[in-house]
């Protein structure tokens, strides 16, 4: 299979799998199949999907370095945007049904409940990343774009803490996600990411070409 066909296949898989949780929730809503507390289900699964998709997004670059298969970078932006889409739905459900559209209650909760505080912070960190994901913004921001989009790690960290702080006793899943994030962060260490060690002697041009987080405009 040539690269183009493979990329197309990967993209199809991406769209189908990223939309599947949403489709499953909509199906549950339509058929009243989400149990006696559907809002809890919707909140839980949109949040979970956002967090998992964000971690998958962050694994694209390490995957590319590991396999050397560069075209995979093309799915990073849509993955990140899907993560943000679920985060928007997650936030909206909470604002509509838990806060009952009451701004005062919302601000109180953000100020007083630390798991809400970090969840909200994660959402706020992600928002400019989603906004600046377009080709125009990538061009305008240049190298600053790369720095800005490292915020995805911060958002993922805040998201994991948000999840860990909200469970009552069973911390297995949040800890698993924290472990995944830790692995991704370790993969970013210069020594492992292929940018460390030799950078001192490496010619400037080569350093630039090894910059794996260069924005993708495709």
């Amino acid at each position, binding site marked *: 299979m040539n690269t183009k066909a493979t990329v197309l296949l990967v993209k199809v898989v991406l769209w189908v799998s990223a939309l599947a949780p949403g489709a499953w929730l909509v199906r549950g809503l339509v058929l009243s199949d989400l149990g006696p507390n559907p*809002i809890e289900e919707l909140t839980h699964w949109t949040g979970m999907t956002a967090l998992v998709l964000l971690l998958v997004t962050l694994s694209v670059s390490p995957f590319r370095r590991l396999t050397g298969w560069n075209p995979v970078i093309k799915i990073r932006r849509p993955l990140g945007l899907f993560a943000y889409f679920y985060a928007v739905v997650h936030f909206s459900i909470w604002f509509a049904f838990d806060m009952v559209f009451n701004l005062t209650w919302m601000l109180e909760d953000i100020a007083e409940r630390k798991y809400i505080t970090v969840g909200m912070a994660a959402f706020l960190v992600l928002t400019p990343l989603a906004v600046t994901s377009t080709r125009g913004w990538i061009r305008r921001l240049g190298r600053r774009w790369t720095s800005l989009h490292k915020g995805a790690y911060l958002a993922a960290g805040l998201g994991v803490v948000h999840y860990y702080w909200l469970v009552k*006793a069973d911390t297995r899943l949040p800890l698993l996600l924290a472990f995944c994030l830790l692995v991704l962060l370790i993969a970013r260490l210069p020594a492992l990411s292929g940018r460390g060690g030799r950078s001192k002697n490496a010619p400037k041009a080569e350093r630039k070409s090894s910059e794996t987080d260069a924005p993708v405009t495709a």
Partner: protein
Amino acid sequence: MIIRRPPDIPSSEITPESVYVDRRKFIQAAAAGAAGLAVNPSALAGLQAPTAQSQEIPPRFANMRSEIDEALNSYEAVTTYNNFYEFGTAKEDPARNSGDFNPRPWKVTIGGECNKPGEYDLDDLMSGITMEDRVYRLRCVEAWSMVIPWYGFQLSSLINRVEPTGNANFLMFKTIVRPEEMPGQRQAILNWPYVEGLRMDEAMHPLTILATGVYGMDLPNQNGAPLRLVVPWKYGFKGVKSIVSIDFVERMPLNTWQRQNSVEYGFYANVNPNVSHPRWSQARERRLPSLFKNHPTTMFNGYAEQVQHLYAGMDLERWK
């Protein structure tokens, strides 16, 4: 089935005497609830089963409309959405994973500071005790709530029977440990067995019951068969399920959730809109099946008139 109304509970808090109901009608109504129609008294006019025989609203529900201004949650909701970590930590886990649990035969060990300790067969324990229906609000510490028709008996009648001594200041309840039948107990999510406790005056209060049933039928495994505690003015986690031992003790027992996280959970766990859980407000609740968390939580879950004297002079922020 004998239904008795204790003297000091207002009629609005329990099912009235007049609403004796035969099980078939009851199950029909429950099935209607299961079909997705919340059993809402005001909607009952349109909730007729499509048979010629059932042309009247089951008397129990008809009377509830006037006596209790809050809709019962459907049998399905009550039995498919609850916390019972012994069967898993998700709300649907108890209903899904409790099929292998054997609630009969059942023995309850009663011990500690009482004159008649021993291992009692549940049927012996209940013989001669007045069984009754009690419709109570259930407020979960997680800020959702339901209205549930329990079936059971006053804990006080059991306590009187075993004659506690003067040293009995508290009761300590334990859930059975059976990891082979309770898959949640195979992981150390909580410190098994689940332990709960009540102060003696709380245990003796006429609102406090041991439930053996719900909706007039035996408790399903997921709801704590065959015997569970129901204390309607406290958060739901006080309602220890599948009780296998009751001990009369001198000192306040360390209940499971307090042991798990004493910053967030205390011994008393009285429903209190003014004392937040550290992670969320307790001022509002989601009264299922409502989608919105906009139902105001009331002091002692609406039972303040009956129970607030138990806590006179206590700092309820400290003794949360």
